[in-house]
């Protein structure tokens, strides 16, 4: 059963990556100048005739667009993302330098968002009508209405300019003078901005699905039979967490979008900041590369969330429709 399910998910992921690759390829086509120049950017002038010939052959530039796409895709799959037109280094090298920072920011924020929202959502959801219940609804609407980057600007003003306790930008270096402490102090502001603006909305979703689950007949029967409150809570939260995970999966793409902006604001040297830099400097090979990598990141994350859901939901394991 699982192999069939995994296969289905994989096909979906591949379709998404195809669309992203179309987008990428379209950028190369639409970029000013001929594709070889777009691909090698500022270095195009330094290429010799033989090298140009080789590029033209490798990317099938003298043949129809469809064949060019296939050739380009072949090179991309092999890991050749071209050369940055501004830095003159291979795009894949630049991206590999940036990737750990993005993964660090993403995993730290997601960890705290999930822990925080499960805690808040459970407390609020299990006590219907309490202050927690009403308070969380308002809190979540209010926090999700704050633009994350604006909160970031305010944080910079308070913590970096006024108090001077946290660095306003950069991503720190573990091997530098400050070591791990330096890295963490750079991480605090971008991560907390993302956590504050997202935790409420996830908590609220869990709260609502716990409330629905709590009013189900089976819970009533369990209560009537004197099942302890703690084991009822365990069961209810477990069942409510499946729509919650689904919601996380649905919002992951916009979360990635939001982290692009926060990365740029704090000059956190990750993929998001790289993408924005590539757009503003018109570094098309770099832009294509970072778009592809973001697409791959989203697909992998969704796949992991799906796997967790699969493991938790017996209905899905038995082959039921989602």
């Amino acid at each position: 059963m699982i192999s069939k399910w995994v296969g289905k998910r994989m096909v979906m992921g591949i379709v998404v990556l195809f669309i992203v690759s179309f987008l990428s390829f379209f950028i190369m086509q639409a970029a000013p100048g001929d594709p070889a120049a777009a691909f090698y950017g500022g270095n195009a002038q330094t290429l010799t005739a033989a090298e140009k010939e080789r590029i033209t052959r490798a990317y099938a530039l003298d043949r129809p667009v469809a064949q060019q796409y296939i050739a380009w895709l072949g090179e991309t799959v092999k890991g050749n993302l071209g050369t940055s037109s501004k830095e003159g280094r291979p795009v894949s090298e630049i991206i590999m330098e940036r990737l750990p920072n993005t993964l660090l920011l993403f995993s730290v924020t997601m960890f705290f968002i999930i822990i925080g929202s499960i805690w808040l959502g459970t407390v609020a959801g299990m006590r219907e009508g309490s202050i927690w219940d009403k308070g969380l609804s308002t809190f979540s609407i209010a926090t999700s209405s704050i633009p994350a980057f604006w909160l970031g600007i305010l944080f910079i003003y308070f913590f970096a300019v006024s108090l001077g306790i946290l660095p306003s930008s950069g991503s720190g270096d573990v091997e530098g003078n400050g070591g791990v402490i330096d890295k963490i102090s750079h991480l605090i502001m971008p991560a907390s901005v993302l956590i504050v603006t997202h935790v409420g909305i996830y908590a609220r979703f869990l709260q609502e699905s716990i409330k629905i689950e709590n009013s189900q007949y089976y819970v009533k029967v369990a209560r009537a039979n004197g099942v302890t409150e703690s084991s009822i809570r365990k069961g209810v939260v477990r069942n409510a967490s499946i729509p919650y995970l689904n919601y996380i999966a649905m919002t992951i793409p916009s979360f990635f979008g939001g982290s692009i902006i926060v990365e740029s604001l704090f000059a956190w040297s990750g993929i998001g900041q790289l993408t924005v830099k590539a757009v503003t400097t018109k570094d098309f090979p770099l832009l294509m590369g970072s778009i592809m990598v973001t697409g791959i990141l989203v697909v992998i994350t969704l796949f992991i969330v799906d796997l967790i859901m699969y493991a938790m939901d017996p209905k899905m394991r038995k082959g039921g429709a989602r």
Partner: protein
Amino acid sequence: MKSRKALLFWCSLLGLIVFLTVFSNMLAPFSPNEMNMDDVYSAPSSDHWLGTDHLGRDVLSRLLEGGKVTLAVASGSVILSLIIGIVYGGISGYFGGLTDTVMMRLLEALITIPALIIILSFQAIIQGGMWGMTLLIGLTGWLVTARIVRSEFIRLKEEEFVKMANMFGTPVWKILWGHLLQNSIPAIFVVTLFNFAGAIFMEVSLSFLGIGIPPAIPSWGNMLYYAQNDILIGAWWIALFPGIMIFLTILSINFIGEAWKNPKRRRVND
């Protein structure tokens, strides 16, 4: 009763914001682009209520004018995505079968790609102005609307009055327009409200990154773009007020949307 009052409050707040920005020409004390190099970075005072920016321009005037730009871009793009969403979702929901499956699979794939990424890449090539931005936000914002319209159409298609109308030989366009679309309006309204908030977020984010609205035109996002440098020298008023306006606008839209949401239709995102 209490929620009625709250709804009224949020509606009037949103109305006030729209009013202030639409009539910014008359209400603004200064011209939004009027520079005064002798008066840069002056803190809020009786002369400039909300202070001046790095070129000595009045923040309050730019705030009102910028709101007009931001809200115009958001409204334009929401209308565009509403139309695309209704057509796409309507076709998918009404015809069903293979068409529906293919269209929904495509939609599912598109929804996984961060809209910001798509807009960023197009902005890199065309570097459009205000209307280019509107177009891009509209073209990437219709996915959820399409989903809602589809599920509404599928639900309504099975209702008795639609089956009856079919039996009587009512023309298809009349069923689509009068029966299916008009009965989906409450659901479409709610999702469009949230879409509007999303479009404001998108414009503001892009302009904040310096790749949205051209810098010559004031918008809330553009103001914040300059504010990130101004904040480092302590000019907090340039950053604070556009953010508060964005926050209040989105907050009132979200509360109105929440109040309108049918309790039974718990999740708009589905």
